[in-house]
């Protein structure tokens, strides 16, 4: 049996990678994917704790997170498409103004 700490370390590594991706990349799609990575790192931490403590709460929250992430992807991708239509770019640094 793989010790629980391994999962948590993997989760931390994934989260850090996601966070770095959000901060470092300028492509909106990549940032989006990095956010997904962070969400799933959190999911991994939830299910590992759920397994350790033998409680279902963590697993239930993970379902919620997956559902919210799906909804977020739907809205986020729609926004990215709309931005690309007007700016012909999805570079987030070019979206520093609130004006359309």
């Amino acid at each position: 049996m793989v010790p629980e700490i391994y999962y948590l370390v993997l989760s931390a590594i994934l989260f850090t990678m996601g966070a770095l991706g959000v901060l470092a990349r300028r492509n909106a799609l990549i940032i989006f994917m990095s956010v997904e990575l962070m969400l799933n790192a959190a999911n991994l931490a939830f299910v590992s704790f759920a397994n350790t403590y033998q409680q279902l709460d963590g697993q239930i929250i993970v379902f919620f997170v997956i559902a919210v992430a799906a909804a977020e992807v739907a809205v986020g991708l729609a926004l990215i498409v709309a931005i690309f239509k007007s700016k012909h770019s999805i570079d987030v640094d070019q979206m520093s103004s609130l004006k359309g």
Partner: protein
Amino acid sequence: MHFSETINTGFFFLAPWLVFAPVIGLLVNIILGGWFLKRSWGETAVGTVASLASGAAFVVSALLAYSVYANGGHGESVFLAQWMHIGDLQLNWTFRVDSLSTTMMLVVSGVGTLIHIYAIGYMHEDVRFKKDEKRYQRFFVFLNLFIAAMMILVSGDSYLMLFVGWEGVGLCSFLLIGFWYDMDTLGRSSWANSNAAKKAFITNRIGDFGFLIAGFLMFWAFKSFDFNTVFEAAESAPPELILLITLFMLVGVAGKSAQIPLYVWLPDAMAGPTPVSALIHAATMVTAGVYLVSRSAPLYTLVPEAQYVVAMTGAATALFAATIAVGQYDIKKVLAYSTISQLGFMVAAVGMGAYVAGMFHLVTHAFFKALLFLSAGSIILGLERGHHHLAHHGGGHGDHHEEVFDPGDMRNMGGLRKTMPVTFWLYLTGTLALAGIFPFAGFWSKDEILADAFREGYTGVYWLLTLAAFFTAFYMGRQIWMVFFGEPRHEAAAHAEESKPIITVPLMVLALLSIVGGALNLPGLHTFTEWLEHTLEVHAGEFVMSVALISTALALAAIVISWLIYGRNPLKAGQPDPLKKPLGLVFTGMENKWFVDEGYKAVILDNYVRISKFLADVIDWRFWHDWFHEKVIAGTYNWLSNVALNKYADQRGIDAFANGLGEWTKEASASLRRVQNGFVRSYALSVLLGVVLILGYLLLK
């Protein structure tokens, strides 16, 4: 039954109506007078209301006199109202009705009523000559106000009530001298009449100052103003104090009764309409001083020194004013100086302690001097009528309007005996009474003063007064010859017209009184002495034949001399006074009132003006305003507000704090604004850092 009760208690309860009656009269005229005057009968109505009010006061006076008589000569005090009670000061409005005050009441209201009636006719013409008919109403309001104030004066039970009336009549005198305030006596536009009014008022204030000091001393020493209290307390008071009180009171007497040195206002007071000159400046108000001394007899009797001063003041005034009267040309000015002179007689009499003689002369003088003044008014109106007659019907004299005509100048008169016969006989009666010719009223009263002076050993006073009596007869003779005899020296005098009965009938009553007035106190009978004995400690003096003979002889001699100078060779138009040549400088002095006014101006007025200018310019303006106010107070204030408060406290303290707060907020927000750069990744970094911080805190706690 009811009548006998009234007899027992008397009519004393009526006393307040002495004042209320004229006040009601003046209120009616104030309220309804304007309405009356719009109607044809308006002037008669206004005059009648005023005369009735004064007449009512006369009826009340007569009833009060009767009550005193029925009461065995003993007076009563009638309490009307509480005025003020402050500490020791207990002041009531109480009427003192005794034989002395009722005598004054009868003279004031009796002569006053006759003059009111006369004024109905006189003012009817006067307002037309002066071209302002609306003032008719005002005249009678003032006249009634005067009667009311004079009644307060003579009926007061304390020095303070007397002073209230004293000031009241002073006010009325001021108002009536300045009645034609916007013109001079000839009707030309000028402030001469108002200046005369102011002169009278201010000169009287000097006298009143003396009276006030006397009053203060009295209250300080005796804690009361009531006559009875003061007289009782005075007997045990130090004589120096009484001397001070009486001498300060003399200053007040000199002001009101026109004695040296304060007489100068009275001649100028002739600027008022003639009824005013007769009522206020001859018959009643100016005698207030004589009344005051008589009323204060218990005080004066205590200090013979004061009596001597009063007597000498009166005697000196009598002679001094009589000499000036000789050199005057204005008919009213002669009478004015004559009034001063006669007041001198009265003051001398009361100063000698001859109160009965003084009061007796006061009464008879009121009759004949009112008669003379009113007749003079009739003459002036007659000349005005003649002048207007000429101006309207003169034909060839088209320039009459341009000529300044003085209807009061005796040099414009002459021969009026023929054109104004009634006035002539009236004036002659007054003249004989004033000159002291047997058996006219003036003979008896003047003789009593002279006899008292002779008997009491006041030799100086006696000779001064005898000499003054000689001059009196002389200037009155001069006036008669100049005015009524000879040929008219002006066309107006040639065309003069006699006055209407409304003017002459009151004069006839006064003439009658001037003839028989002496019967009040005939030698041997002493009616008036016995009457006043109930109030004053006096004794009947016996008739001194030698005194009477000397004064009559001198009076007759004076009239003969005046005939020799003015009657035998009547004055021609434009001719100087025949006395001018033989007397030279002396006559110039008489003509110019011995330059007293000029002397006062040089010694007092000019210096006063200089001091005032110094005070106004240097002290008030330069020191007080420029230096103290502008520099010290305003400067300090400005410095304080500008430098200390504005610059330091406000600008560097409060403003700096408020501005600093704003600046800091601006700077803080400027640096914070840089955080909000719109780059999503920097926001994300902030969120991350925030999460790290919070988690770090939670973990390391």
